[in-house]
């Protein structure tokens, strides 16, 4: 059983001559089978240490030659910075809970969302949800429906009803008040 990275290191050293070697030639010169040679060559190419000149024929790049001269040993683990966006659990905020409620509702009023999302620790959930829905409406995530729900107060014009039309994913879009934009982590982009 070989240690992780031992096979590509052996192949890299075998390719050190600077010329393109075929799998047949490598098979004859190193103590590796053809499958191991092919897989290790792939790893070297991924790391930019070798290149495939033509089908089944590999040679070291300048970086590969420099790596052999430095006596570099290839190890397991990442070979480049991990730049993918981190997948973090959504924070348990009022707006996240409000977004959850909007996603599962057909049409909704602000009261429906506040009732579902608010917790005792929230400061002013009514005002917060109202601002959030307004931002989502400006960014065309939410549309206001033409007919209002019946109001409860004597002079009420009725409750606005909304529908979520852009359900982009489980993470609540972030409303940026100053720039009047919405950043959507589900799409990793900003909405106007």
């Amino acid at each position, binding site marked *: 059983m070989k240690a992780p990275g031992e096979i590509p290191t052996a192949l890299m050293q075998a390719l050190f001559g600077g010329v393109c070697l075929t799998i047949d030639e490598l098979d004859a010169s190193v103590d590796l089978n053809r499958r191991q040679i092919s897989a290790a060559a792939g790893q070297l190419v991924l790391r930019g240490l070798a290149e495939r000149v033509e089908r089944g024929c590999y040679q070291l790049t300048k970086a590969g030659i420099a790596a052999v001269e430095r006596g570099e040993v290839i190890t397991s683990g990442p070979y480049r910075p991990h730049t993918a966006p981190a997948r973090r659990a959504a924070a348990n905020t009022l707006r996240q809970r409000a977004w959850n*409620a909007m996603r599962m509702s057909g049409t909704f009023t602000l009261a429906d969302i506040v009732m579902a999302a608010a917790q005792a620790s929230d400061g002013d959930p009514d005002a917060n949800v109202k601002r959030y829905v307004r931002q989502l409406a400006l960014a065309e995530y939410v549309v206001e429906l033409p007919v209002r729900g019946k109001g409860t107060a004597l002079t009420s014009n009725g409750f606005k009803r909304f529908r979520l039309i852009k359900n982009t994913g489980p993470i609540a879009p972030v409303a940026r008040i100053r720039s009047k934009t919405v950043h959507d982590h589900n799409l990793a982009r900003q909405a106007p």
Partner: protein
Amino acid sequence: MKNKFVETSNVKRFQTALSALEARGAEEACLVVIDGSPGVGKTTTLRQWVAQTGSVYLRAKKEWTPSWFINELLDAMRVHPPHSFQKKFGKALEELALRQQSAAMERRQFGLVIDEADHVSSKSAILETIRDLSDIIELPTILVGMGRVNDHLARFPQVASRVSQKVRFEKADLADIKALIAERCEVPVANDLAEFVLRVSQGFNREVLEAIANIERFGLRFDYDATGITLGDMAGQVIVNDRRSSQPVKVPELL
């Protein structure tokens, strides 16, 4: 009316069932069935639970097939569905398990809610798929219906045996009505009026909320005493619209 979620006896029973599910004996029994007539608060309760827990919510369709169901499930989690059913099922399992794990780390409940489950409760293929999902990763799965789910499930003993909790949402009683009035109404209401609300609403939450809105509308421009708005104060006022006849019901002038 105040925008406050009120923990009625139905909500408490639902929460008790979920707590019992967490402390269950047979580990594979992860299904919960919630049944009840329309207007008793099922959707409001589920909406609040889903919003608070970030659980996955699906509304069953009459023509659902296992493939359609899994596609909707993956879509709800915003996962691009692979081509074959086998891979879709595997992907759904993987994503649900990840979310379940993340919820467990935050010590929060998590589950899959399938609303309008009456549509699928007589289809063995869908039920088996739901059972498999629920069994494999021990995922609490809540089937919400309007009274027929339990009857339909009786035809599938292999699924019915996985139902560990059954919650029947009942009409509100006087204590529920009083709790709803106390938490949501902006004016105090006397006991006799609360009892009248119970009678005319027949315990349906929708009608109770309509009555609260009417009481509030009247009460905010009425000089009531310390006991709050009484039945006598509201004599002749419309309190609710009758569910069956759609006719307005007025508080009687003389009792």
